[in-house]
């Protein structure tokens, strides 16, 4: 059975009409039309589909779209401030934490959520905070460095 409702993605209300069993990931990609959120496993194991729901990181592959009604959804496309990259985006790039880039959107959103709740995470806390996001390319070293550098920058 389908249902019509609004999804608020990156501050914009998108009217959608989707089956109740559609997951949030497929609606963001297929109906809202934002493809920065990736599907890596459809099994909550890889974190490539991570989005923020009211600031909390969620694997959108395993979350029904209808459950996201009335909540603020943030995808990678909503992380930039206008045309200016968020420090996390800039730093993960400058530190060399991007290779194939497929895990990168989810990784940035998990890191974003981590820094929201802990503005001075230890290396161990960063590693645990990102442990729901698999990266096959980098060995994680430069991603962790980028998150720590961002924390320092944001604290000023």
């Amino acid at each position, binding site marked *: 059975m389908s249902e019509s409702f609004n999804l608020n993605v990156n501050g914009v209300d998108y009217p959608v009409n989707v089956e109740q069993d559609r997951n949030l990931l497929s609606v963001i990609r297929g109906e809202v039309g934002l493809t920065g959120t990736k599907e890596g496993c459809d099994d909550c194991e890889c974190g490539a589909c991570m989005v923020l729901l009211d600031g909390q990181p969620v694997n959108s592959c395993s979350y029904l779209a209808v459950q996201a009604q009335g909540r603020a959804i943030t995808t990678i496309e909503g992380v*930039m401030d206008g045309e200016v990259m968020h420090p996390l985006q800039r730093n993960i790039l400058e530190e060399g934490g991007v290779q*194939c880039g*497929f*895990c*990168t959107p989810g990784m940035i959103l998990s890191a974003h959520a981590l820094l929201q709740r802990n503005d001075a995470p230890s290396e161990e806390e960063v590693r645990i905070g990102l442990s729901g996001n698999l990266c096959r390319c980098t*060995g994680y070293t*430069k991603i962790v460095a980028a998150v720590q550098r961002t924390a320092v920058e944001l604290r000023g």
Partner: protein
Amino acid sequence: MTATIKKQSKTPARRFVRADGPDKVTGSGRYAADMSLTGALAAKFRYAQVSHARITKLDVTAARAMPGVFAVLTADDVPDVRFGGMVQDRTLFARDVVRFEGEIVAAVAAVDADTAQRAVDAIVFEYSPLPVVNDVVSALEPGTQLVHEDWASYTAPGVMVRKGNDASYASIARGDVDKALAEADFVVKSHYESDGCHAAPIEPRAVVAQWEGNKVTIWTSTQVPFDARAGVCETLELPNNRVRIIVPHLGGGFGGKCGFHYEAHIAALARVAKRPVKLVFSRREEFLAPDKRREGIVYDFETGVKADGTITARKARLVIDNGAYTSDAGFFSQLAAMHALGPYKIPNVFAEASLAYTNHQPSGSVRAPTAPQTCWALESHIDEVANKIGMDPVAFRKLNAVDTGVEGPSGQTYGEIGVQQCIDAATSAAGYGQPLPDDEAIGVAIGWWPTFASASGAYIKLDGDGSGQIITGAQECGTGAVMTLRQLAADELGMQPEDFELVYQDTSAAPYDMGATGSQTLFNNGRAVIAAAGQIADQLRELAANKLEAAAADIVLADGMAHVAGSPDRGVAITKLAATAAGGELLIGHGSGPPPPAATATGSTCVGDIGMTAWRAPQFSCHAVRVRLDRDTGVVRVLRVSTAHDSGTIINQVGAQGQVEGGVMMGIGQALTEGTQYDDQGNQRNAALLEYKLQTCADAPPIDVQFIEIYTPDAGPHGAKSLAEAPNVATAAAIGNAIAKLVGSPVRRLPMTAERVWGAMQS
């Protein structure tokens, strides 16, 4: 810690931000699954779901009749063509017999994925089971069921030695190994086994195909677009110039996306359906269907050694799991034999390897094929030999490892190489020899890996505003190798990397390149880009010479200017020269540098010799890994990995560090958690990320990266060798040797899971 030992490096270290980075961090970059075309249909495959069987009935009538189904194809609907990298043993769709669970029996295109799946379920597929070849060693025993009854009729290079279930036998022999073993002071024998494992890129593959008239464009997540094109052309009997392969951003590959995969199936569906067709793999399909996964191997080693620690003889016998089809694995046997000898100066050797057909998923080139697991087995054996004679394993390696000007085990004499420096640098960084807590140990291993020369091409143009484009056949799979091409062009032309945009991953736009395989991109396409840039540099010098009334040979290109040598003030901006050229002879360069000369080995005799015994510009590495063992559970934690690599000149420092860190992390997974488990019918039991465990950020240790930079002549650009695969070679081996120190004996099967470590502790 990151350190670089500089030696004769020609390029300055430069901080490098990759050109595709902004796309990737903002979400605007498109990957194959992000492509959408009006009217596109969804594709699904009907897989065999049985490891070995004769097809008795395949009826797609009901599936074709379903509303919303536009095409259903089987072997009857495509040309009867066999293909394969060396042994042509595969067809697009199963014919008569299915040989592994992920073999494609039929393909469907329908209005949406659910309809396509219902059509797949409506296909009538009946079969008569055949005996399953599930064990790699017994596969070679006389009387065993043949995986391919018609193996002898398959096309294959004449040099290959094939017989029954052995798809490729190779050996390397030198000296008199039996005599040397008889005369040795000690002889040590060891047996090891390694399980297969997966490339597991985070992006599951996707393919979109669209026909316009008699031409097809295919967007696909391949590492090797020209190889994919060749596969489409071969199997659908099309000329190269009517098939265009475009790769959007590629979400990792590690070899798993090498070779020709599903482009032809989807193109064939789209042609019949007269609509664009899109395939997106699930993670389960990504585990089961590709013909590229890391091969399991069974190893037997015998090494003779003098009391003073000198190795005098090595015998090795390896049986490699080829799986059901040979894919690109035909060269694995001789390559694995080389890894069974290792970077050691051994005068008497006999190493042999067989590539055994089984009813498993096919093996293929996953990051340094055969190397990490064979290095793990050999280096475990080396520690056993060192222990036997009571010698420190690092001192033992220093004594026996190859070195500059020394002859290696296959009879190749090496130019200036850095393996000895690698051992010193890695062990020093790890603090090897210093006291450790009782439950900690440092294991050390050395590894090697060839570089692969290939034809490769690029064009460069400078437009009227002075901005440049590099149009290259090279493929970016994440390593940053293609991104680094900008730096090479900029250095030739006295410009900045940011002055160039890349046009790449499009077979109709650029000349041939082998693709993101064999760590070859910078090695080969780097030379092509430098050659192309050199042509434009010559043009710029001529233009500047006319303007400045100087000889072209005296013009220097630097900092965006063309100026007379020794007179920086007497110059003209390159942008001005480009504007001039735009009204006359355009600034266009093309390059395809000839491959460097082949290496040679003398004194060895080989059967099934496919050219793997002598390596151009060989790379060397040493990894020293500190681990902690939980003696109650067998759980091993990697605390620190210290690496040193000789990959020649390093051109992109940040990118190179990333390759080492990523290769090490993959090696830790191979060491401890990543292994395919089969049931008694040859079906994978752990084809999901919940059961097949990749390493997470919380598992990752600090990784020290050191480069022993030696300018290497007759190699890649500026004396570079390759890099992407080499860092994956020695990690698992070093971890194994650390565990063996704590357990008291090696864990003889890879991966060394907690259960296996605990088992070794009890025996």
